[in-house]
């Protein structure tokens, strides 16, 4: 998920400053919708390294929005971890976004609390919140290899639906 040449300066800036995340918007559309490309973003992880969603397009991807005070989100993390293990040998990408986080330590501590094996990005960004219509968390977005949103779950997701949605995006050609 490393970003390309065009964003190199952006990475450097973030590494130096670790300032509140400044999302880079590709402006695919106003809000996330099933059957459409996801709104693009580029946000830093706990090392200040910027990750761009655009670089994941073409891979099955799960986006997971959460924050620090969400009991149900911790249950969905269990689903994500199982998917991570089950599809380890595939190109499935799991990206978590903490919508309260604007700081490397913030993310590091969240990842430590749940022993997250996948990326978490600093998602405290008004543009991100509005483009994914984050009012309630969790929000789980399933993106297919075709770069289109296949499923979009607000509030919570049943394990069965989560597993079916994951299988669908991973197993689809």
């Amino acid at each position, binding site marked *: 998920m490393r970003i390309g040449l065009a964003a190199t300066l952006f990475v450097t800036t973030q590494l130096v400053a670790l300032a509140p995340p400044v999302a880079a918007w590709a402006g695919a559309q106003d809000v996330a919708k099933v059957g459409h490309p996801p709104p693009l973003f580029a946000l830093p992880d706990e090392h200040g390294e910027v990750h761009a969603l655009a670089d994941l397009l073409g891979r099955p991807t799960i986006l997971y929005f959460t924050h620090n005070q969400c009991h149900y989100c911790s*249950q969905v993390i269990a689903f994500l971890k199982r998917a991570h293990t089950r599809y380890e040998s595939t190109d499935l990408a799991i990206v978590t976004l903490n919508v309260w986080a604007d700081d490397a330590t913030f993310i590091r501590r969240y990842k430590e609390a*749940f022993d997250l094996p996948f990326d978490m990005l600093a998602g405290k960004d008004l543009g991100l919140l509005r483009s994914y219509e984050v*009012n309630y968390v969790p929000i789980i977005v399933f993106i297919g290899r075709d770069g289109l949103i296949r499923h979009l779950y607000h509030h*919570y997701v049943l394990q069965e639906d989560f597993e079916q949605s994951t299988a669908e995006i991973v197993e689809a050609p």
Partner: protein
Amino acid sequence: MPWTSHATACDRREFIRVAGLGTAGLVGGGLRPSHAAGIDPSAYATMEFDVSYRTRIHTLPSNARDLHIWMPLPSSDHAQTISNLNIEGPQPHEITTERVFGSRMLHIAVTRGLADAAPFDVEARYHVTRRRVGARRDTLSADDARKFLTLTPTVRMTAEIEQFAERIVGRASDPYEIGRRVSEGIQDLLFYDKTIPGCGTGDTAWIMKHRRGKCDDYHSLYMAIMVSRGVPIRWHQGFPLPLPEPGVSVAGQLEGDCTGAHCWVSFYAADRGWVPVDVSEADKANDAGTAGSFFFGNLSPNRFQVSVGRAVRLTPEQGGDPLTSFAYAYAESDGIPLVYTANYENIIQYAITNVEMS
């Protein structure tokens, strides 16, 4: 609906079961659906109950340098009397007051011995006598009014909300009439979605678009429109309780994250004072065929208030962002919020000891 969700097709208890949590003692947000059982909330005059509000610190971040916990503490006022307050925990505490609206809170700071501090519990126990209340005459200075005319980044007006407000308020200029029209308009607009277990921000643009939500959403939209019409409004944050039959003992546990709380508002009209409104309860009552109109100007006693206001800055001020509202104990280490369930947990239990009808 503009997004694909299975939320309406599944039941939250089913989600909890599938997620392996079990169901004992869980209560969803908003007041209990007593209306469905044919119980008339307006018939309840007072309720008394004991509350145990406990915060359990499970673990701390490996490199934590300090720990701060803020727990809301209810205050006595015309609607409720708080007695027998008892606080227990291994760490020293102080009781502080929020600067804008005066909400009380318990503050605990731990700066030494952090490596061995967790796990530990902090518990506040108290007795609540809660009364059925109506409008309360009061004066409001221009200075004080200002703080009740302030919106937040999420509780905001948009062009769509303004258009809706123009349609439902019309030419009304009397605050009481504006309040009534907005309450009824929002009930017509929104669907009370009890399947939402998550944690909301009360984003009025989202609410207006999706036209569903819980108490936080109903009252955020109500607040935005009332402020846009120049009517001072106060946000009340608390917890819901069931309405038991007289003589029946009821005890239970409220969810301790951001889903088990309840909120309501009151607006100021010079000729009536503070007028309480519970728009989401009114909507639920109407849907159940009981008199939702009771909840415009009146509140049933099956609730208790723990704080006032939104976008809450605690005392001493937290390192993180202002809290959307302050129902749950909040904890930080080094200015960074702890992670709910992993680092800490809130356990709120109640036992109703007396009910009086009228």
